[in-house]
């Protein structure tokens, strides 16, 4: 990073079905708690970046930059970014660019999604916007369908069994029991995962992250200091349609972003104590572990079969925390910062992607308890 950027404030709503709250209320709640946790006042914020994917199609609301800006007394400049499910991390990446350039000194980033206002048909169609509308959608595919193709191919290539795959969501549900912000805080046995309804063969309901409402916000600053700094922020892209890829059991954008992030932070995979990865579908966790270099191809499942020192989705991940699309990338960064502060360890990593890994954004956080002033 060209400047020393600290994460000085964090806040989020509990993810879930919030029938009584609007998109605006969710944003307000997350922003309020982020400002309250920060060592500065709201007036120090000199730029706002809003992450959102679906508001136009689902909530009939565009222009979210100005909406978020109206929450603060001095109406700082604001913009909105979108990169499907990677919107949240891309917003943080954009904030880092503003901070590095010197255009801003303290930036508020907020990601929000209000999904339960729409019927499941509408949500399904809206989410397909993250895929290729001319190559993928006309075949009648849904997003679970695309990952169904990925899972089917993965099982064929590496011999992964349904019983093994059950372990992934079961672990994430177990982790979420301790997370007060998670949508589903109940334990699920591997048998329950394997017995849930088929959504897109071989994927079942409990392989899929849910439809959720929620918002998450954080404040980044080059002016104010905190024990958590951003050591790397890297993003990479790939073709949007899986029909344009040479392989569907590995995502090139994850590999590329990871390589550059490790390089930027000057750390290696063995330094990482906490990992939050993008488990929009159970199979995606295994591929992410492999693409990031934590496992050989086909062996990502070992992280769920054996005990390992690094924590993976200690928050419960997308599966159990819920996945209000654009809030997720910011929520992951919030979780990593909390985990580092709780464990006293130094390095944590958040991995967030959009579509079928067509946009990947990786952040590495560094915790130095006594360094800041």
């Amino acid at each position, binding site marked *: 990073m060209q400047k020393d950027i600290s994460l000085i404030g964090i806040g989020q709503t509990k993810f879930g079905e919030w029938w009584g709250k609007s998109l605006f209320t969710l944003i307000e709640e997350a922003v309020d708690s982020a400002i309250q946790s920060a060592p500065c006042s709201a007036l120090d914020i000199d730029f706002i970046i809003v992450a959102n994917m679906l508001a136009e*199609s689902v909530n009939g609301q565009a222009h979210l930059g100005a909406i978020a800006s109206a929450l603060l007394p001095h109406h700082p400049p604001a913009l909105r970014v979108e990169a499907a499910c990677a919107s949240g991390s891309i917003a943080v990446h954009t904030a880092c660019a503003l901070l590095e350039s010197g255009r801003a000194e303290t930036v508020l980033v907020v990601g929000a999604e209000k999904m339960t206002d729409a019927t499941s*048909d*509408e949500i*399904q*169609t*809206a989410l*397909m916007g993250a895929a290729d*509308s*001319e*190559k*993928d*959608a*006309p*075949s*009648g*595919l*849904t997003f*679970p*369908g695309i990952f*169904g*193709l*990925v*899972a*089917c*191919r993965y099982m*064929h*290539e590496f011999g992964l069994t349904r019983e093994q795959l059950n372990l992934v969501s079961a672990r994430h549900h177990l982790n979420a029991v301790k997370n007060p912000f998670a949508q589903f805080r109940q334990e699920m046995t591997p048998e329950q995962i394997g017995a849930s*309804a*088929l*959504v*897109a*063969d*071989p*994927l079942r309901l409990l392989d899929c992250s849910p439809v959720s409402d929620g918002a998450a916000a954080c404040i980044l600053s080059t002016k104010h200091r905190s024990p958590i700094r951003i050591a790397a922020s890297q993003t990479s892209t790939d073709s949007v*349609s*899986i*029909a*344009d*890829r*040479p*392989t*569907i059991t590995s995502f090139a954008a994850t590999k590329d972003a990871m390589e550059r992030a490790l390089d930027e932070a000057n750390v290696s995979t063995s330094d990482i104590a906490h990992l939050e990865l993008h488990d929009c579908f159970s199979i995606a966790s295994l591929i992410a572990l492999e693409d990031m270099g934590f496992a050989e191809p086909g062996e990502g499942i070992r992280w769920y079969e054996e005990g390992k020192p690094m924590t993976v989705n200690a928050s419960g991940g997308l599966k159990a925390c819920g996945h209000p699309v654009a809030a997720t990338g910011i929520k992951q960064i919030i979780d990593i910062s909390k985990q580092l502060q709780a464990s006293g360890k130094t390095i944590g990593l958040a991995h967030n992607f959009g579509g079928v890994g067509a946009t990947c954004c990786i952040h590495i956080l560094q915790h130095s308890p006594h360094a800041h002033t």
Partner: protein
Amino acid sequence: MRTPDSPALAARALVRRRSRLLPGTLLSFTTVTHPPKGFPDRPRRIGLIELTDGQRILGMLAGNSAPKIGQVVIPRMHLSRVNPDGLRLYEVTYELTDRMAETATETKEFPGYILAFTGPSGVGKTTISLLLTKMLSDFTSNVPIVTSRAPKKGDDQEYDYVTPKEFERMEKSGALVAWAHLPSDSEERSYGYRKADILAIWEQGKLPVVVTEMQLLQGLAGYFGRRSILSFGLLPPGNSKRTMLSHLLHRLRSRGRETDAQIEERLLNAQADLDYFTRAADLFDHIIVNEDLDAVLHVIKGHVLELAKA
């Protein structure tokens, strides 16, 4: 909200449909229990398929048996749905066959690049490839065309002549990577490339250069993967199809290799070839008009040196 069956989308899908009417190999499949709005509300089986021309597509699978990865699928037209305005929407679905494809295409490694020149008879493919391999003999080498037809006056050294029987034997034994039987009244013509020739050129660290036509190009892309082919389409100069064809006629007559009957037939084929440039645009990386030979060679040389550097 835009639905998958809006008239404009359907019209664009219609254009793409033609290039999808090919058999292929199943790479993966899934059954979507609840398809999106606008599709029949029953489980829908969808496959990721690699077609024989190397392109990958997503399409609906038909047939009662359980699909298997690696299975050969064949296309057929299918009434997909009737939209609320009564527009009947057809699409290509892929029927599962009993056969398994010989190679698992996805795990195939990237073998290297092949330089391909495609274009109608008389456009100057052979001239360009011969000049290029002379100019860049350190980087490129011509792949001989194996043919069952008799040698002709005016042939350059590009052909390797075999008997029709020998050609058939090579085709069956898998010695050829791509072949085409061109139907003809005046002569029996089969053309192909030997696998061994291409591998030998790669082993020397050079780029194989093939002079090809549509079927052979499709075959090559199917065998080595589309990404292996750096494909140049060559067009005769002219703003309309008619002027292009008259250019070709002029060149074919002046090289004096073919009889009048053969020329007439080649022109008929050339018409189809010109259509192919738009129909199978995916198969070409660059379309070049062969008006000024030096300029064309300069452009191609640039691309080759870039590849050689990489």
